[in-house]
């Protein structure tokens, strides 16, 4: 029958298309899939340089950019098998976890001559002692951002977030690790504690904070703070600089209890289809002028000595990007939690957010 023939023709067509998709999926060794944080690479907006476009032009690679909003989401994406990608930029503790669970591939440094620019201080970090899996991208600290016109006095401590005068006016991280860090520091505990009592106490603090917060946010913080829609938000110091350019009423403080100091690094997941391309991209990002353009756009601190040398004095002396010794002395880096703690924190976090 003609109809059945037509149907089989259409079915064959769809099969063919699937095959085409298959071919386009594995056939093109030209494509590099990069999963990055939002607002975390100079992309040509606001008069910056479109680095991906430049890379594509120089090398002929075809870059596909996708985004995640937290280390935890990235972990979910990599472990669920939902995506396939060639390059990711997780933070320290997540790198340690991904290495331990076998989700990262070793990097071939023969393809990354520019690695020589990485400062010694950022080599052999605890999360990747042999530097086999990660190349530092940026570093920075968390801070408390506030709107000078909307607070009664400049805050100095994380406690300000719990101040009921600001009910419905403060924001909070929508990821468990950063949120718990703030609660733990408020209580005077280490942000890497594995003590169940301390973590439960922190969760209780977050439950209390729930009454006060307007919402849980990640990059929505930009819009909320720039548009005077909230008075206070903990966020990453580099992003404060970007926000302040839009809204000069904003200011920040490194709270006295201490802050989190982090390193984000470029890594290649196992199963990457285009490892050579990913390595070429890493090398490209370490080029002094590329790194400079990138750092000027995202305003995070650089671990790249050649880039640092190119920065102007104002940037080098900006305490939000390069904090003073006393801030750094009290800043604590995340270390990788054991599986049991990860599980406990996941559960506590769901309790906090589910309320």
């Amino acid at each position, binding site marked *: *029958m*003609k*109809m*059945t023939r*037509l*149907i089989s023709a*259409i*079915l064959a*067509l*769809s099969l063919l*298309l*699937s095959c085409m*998709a*298959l071919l*386009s*999926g*594995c056939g093109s060794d030209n494509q590099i*899939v990069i999963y990055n944080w*939002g*607002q975390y690479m100079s992309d040509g*907006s606001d008069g910056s340089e479109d680095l991906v476009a430049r890379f594509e032009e120089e090398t002929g690679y075809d870059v*596909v*950019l*996708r*985004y995640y*909003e937290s280390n935890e989401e990235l972990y979910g994406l990599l472990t*669920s*098998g*939902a*995506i*396939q*990608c060639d390059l990711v930029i997780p933070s320290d503790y997540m790198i340690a976890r991904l290495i331990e669970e076998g989700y990262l591939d070793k990097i071939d440094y023969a393809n990354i001559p520019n690695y020589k620019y990485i400062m010694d201080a950022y080599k052999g970090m605890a999360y990747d002692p042999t530097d086999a899996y990660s190349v530092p991208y940026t570093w920075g600290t968390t801070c408390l951002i506030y709107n000078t016109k909307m607070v009664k006095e400049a805050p100095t401590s994380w406690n300000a977030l719990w101040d009921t005068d600001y009910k419905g006016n403060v924001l909070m991280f929508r990821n468990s690790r950063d949120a718990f860090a703030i609660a733990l520091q408020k209580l005077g505990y280490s942000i890497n504690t594995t003590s169940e009592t301390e973590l439960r106490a922190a969760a209780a603090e977050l439950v209390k904070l729930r009454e006060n917060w307007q919402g849980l946010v*990640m*990059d*929505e913080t*930009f*819009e909320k703070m*720039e*548009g005077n829609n909230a008075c206070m938000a903990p966020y990453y110091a580099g992003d404060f600089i970007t926000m302040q350019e*839009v809204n000069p009423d904003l200011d920040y403080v490194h709270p006295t209890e201490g802050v989190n100091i982090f390193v984000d690094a470029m890594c290649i997941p196992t199963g990457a289809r285009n490892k050579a391309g990913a390595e070429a991209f890493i090398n490209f990002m370490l080029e002094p002028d590329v790194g400079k353009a990138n750092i000027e756009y995202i305003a995070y601190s650089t671990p790249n000595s050649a880039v640092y040398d190119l920065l102007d004095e104002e940037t080098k002396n900006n305490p939000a990007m390069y904090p003073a010794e006393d801030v750094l002395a009290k800043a604590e880096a995340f270390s990788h939690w054991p599986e049991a703690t990860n599980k406990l924190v996941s559960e506590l976090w769901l309790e906090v957010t589910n309320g």
Partner: protein
Amino acid sequence: MKKLFSALWVGIIFLFLYFPLLVMVAFSFNSTTSKSVFTGFSLKWYAELFSDPQLMGALGNTLLVAVLAALVATVLGTAAAIGIHSYPKRARNAVMNISNVPIINPEIVTGISLMLMFVMVAGWLRLPMGFWSVLLAHITFNVPYVVLNVLPKLRQMNSHLYEAALDLGAPPRRALWRVVLPEIMPGIASGFLMSLTYSMDDFVITRFTSGNFQTLPVLIYTMLKKPLPLSVNALSALLFLMVLSILIAINVISAKRYKKEQKELAK
């Protein structure tokens, strides 16, 4: 009095439905990034929109998937409807119950169930989810709508038509092609259009089955998490304008036809 109240009520409903959309459209013409203070008229967000390769790429992907999925679903669904129509009642009900599952089930459940299967397949074949999985998922949720659009047309059709064609010596396939198909064409057409719209609009199922493949709704979703450029407003305005003009065209055509019918009735 009653009339005034009705008009007021309808006015409020329309204000409710349209106010947010109109604000969004209005600010697409803003000259700065602010979404609450109008600082001056500008078309720069429209220029930005068309020069954004990511948005344009996602738009292309969306159209590609929608057209392919609607085509396959229409053929598959029309054939299925013709077949199901001649089933005995009980078998028909049984098949229709399964067929309606993607319509009745919460979208998120359809999405995760397909994702579970696709991830397994992806693991076996070392073929990550992408265009193929989105296309298959879209066909799957489109076909039931085609079936539901075609079946009533088959029911309305005089069942003796097909038999008469056979009696007059037409081979079955020609009878289907020349007699049945023209009768049910309106159902097929509306099934196709419905598939097209559902496909272009779908976010939930695509979110779970797309891997790195990006359709417009998926892109908008990731954009919603970032400080949004007003080009998204511009995009909305254009979509709004497009839908509005299609609807007005349909309305004008059908109003003309209605008047014609009335005139003929009057004669």
